């Protein structure tokens, strides 16, 4: 079982295996499956992410009517060619919005590590995959890196907003995405670990405060910050910039902050944005059974 990112780094340096291979081998041992079976399952995950991205139309709205359509808006804006973020990051923003909206609007997605944070990892991977014509093998390797990082964080800290706040959900997704990006660019295990540290440090303390308890506001747009944070941390790590705090220590600190977070800021919808007058009004509207049924018919 994966309990330490530093252990993966040490293992990689000791044996010459890449980060992803250490994760893959641990999985084959842990679940008693062959490499072939494990990779077939990972391919299923990747195919589902691609299908999820393709299924987005921007026309569907969530049951509450709060979200839907912003991914499309962002794409249209990008096409005008004047966005500040540039081509790749512009697409990352649009994909993060689209995927998170798809989740809120009851389309099929892949939880990564949770449904609420499902947009972060595909948002950084998909645009790169299409732009640079990456091979399927490269992407699968990146997904192993991401899942290994997530597994360690789940073990040492938490990946659920209800127990660790949004830093545990979007933060973890962001760390997974950063690690995947570094691996895709040929960064070694040590660089991956630094990217994870930087990512988690920069989202530490983020609370979970979903309006009316629904995975919509602020969740959809938080997928964007998770993805952009991953891109910047990956670039920093690839530039040779290091985290001064060791990776497992950062994960533990995140877990500690999560445990100390007041209950009101852990998915209970009693604090933060959920407690604003607008948030309360939405909650009251939902309680009256006025869930605007805005899901379109296909």
């Amino acid at each position: 079982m994966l309990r330490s990112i530093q252990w993966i780094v040490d293992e990689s340096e000791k044996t010459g295996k890449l980060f992803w291979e250490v994760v893959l081998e641990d999985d084959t041992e842990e679940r008693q499956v062959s490499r072939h079976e494990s990779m077939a399952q990972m391919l299923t995950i990747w195919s589902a992410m691609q299908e999820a991205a393709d299924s987005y139309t921007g026309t569907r709205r969530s049951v509450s009517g709060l979200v839907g359509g912003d991914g499309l808006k962002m794409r249209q804006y990008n096409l005008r060619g004047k966005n500040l973020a540039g081509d790749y990051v512009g697409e990352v923003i649009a994909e993060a919005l689209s995927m998170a909206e798809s989740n809120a609007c009851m389309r099929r997605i892949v939880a990564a590590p949770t449904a609420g944070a499902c947009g972060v990892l595909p948002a950084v991977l998909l645009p790169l995959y299409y732009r640079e014509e990456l091979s399927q093998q490269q992407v699968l390797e990146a997904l192993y890196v991401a899942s290994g990082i997530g597994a360690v964080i789940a073990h040492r800290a938490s990946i659920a907003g209800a127990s660790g706040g949004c830093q545990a959900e979007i933060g973890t997704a962001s760390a997974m995405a950063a690690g995947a990006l570094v691996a895709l660019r040929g960064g070694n295990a040590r660089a991956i670990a630094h990217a994870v540290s930087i990512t988690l440090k920069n989202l530490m303390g983020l609370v979970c405060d979903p309006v009316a308890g629904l995975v919509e506001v602020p969740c959809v747009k938080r997928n964007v910050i998770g993805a952009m944070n991953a891109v910047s941390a990956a670039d920093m790590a690839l530039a040779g910039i290091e985290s001064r705090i060791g990776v497992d220590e950062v994960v533990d600190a995140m877990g500690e902050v999560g445990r100390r977070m007041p209950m009101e800021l852990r998915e209970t919808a009693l604090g933060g944005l959920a407690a604003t007058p607008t948030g309360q009004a939405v909650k009251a509207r939902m309680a009256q059974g006025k869930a605007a049924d805005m899901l379109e018919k296909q």
Partner: protein
Amino acid sequence: MDIFDILGPIMVGPSSSHTAGAARIGQMARALLGSQPVKARIHLHGSFAETGAGHGTDRALVGGLLGMKPDDLRIPFAFDEAEKVGLDYEIDTVELRDAHPNTALLEVWDGSGKQLQMQAASLGGGRIVVTQLDGIAVNFTGSYNTLLIRNQDEYGAVAAVTGQLSRMRINVANMSLCRHKRGGDALMVIETDQHLRPLQVDTLRRISGILSVTYYDKEEEENASFDTVDR
């Protein structure tokens, strides 16, 4: 947690606990009833009651009763589907004692009037646990193939069943025995590593003292075909 608890489940949104788990609960009730329910009363407890509508918990439960898996694209339109096949459902809220916040209590009937009452909780990540069956406290998750065997609570019934299983080379992963009161009906919950064939389930039904056998077959993961890359 293994790495496919991190990347996965593949599911219809928005919430693994409130949507994917809810579909699994509905599916489980359908499987245990043994056929398509024609009538269902669904009672939502705790967070299911509070945020269920916004999370599509209601649609997912109904979808599950119609046989939809958590990744079924028809889940958002489960109410329409129910109308099509003639499933008459009612959904309300309930306060259960000592229940997990994401709990649903389901009463379902099939066309012949057979009834099943099941209480189950959604634990996150799409995982569920069945906590009560027809008023008897149980504890199983559907992550194994599961046999539910109702028997007269008399000497030898358990041994006869486990003996038969071992002759069939079926490995018991977990087993528990629940009963209302001594000497009454009892419920054996047996989780097995291997799948059982219909014929094998029938053999168990014929053991004396066995009143009924229900078998839940854990679905296999369907993986993308993959034979190009393996190194």
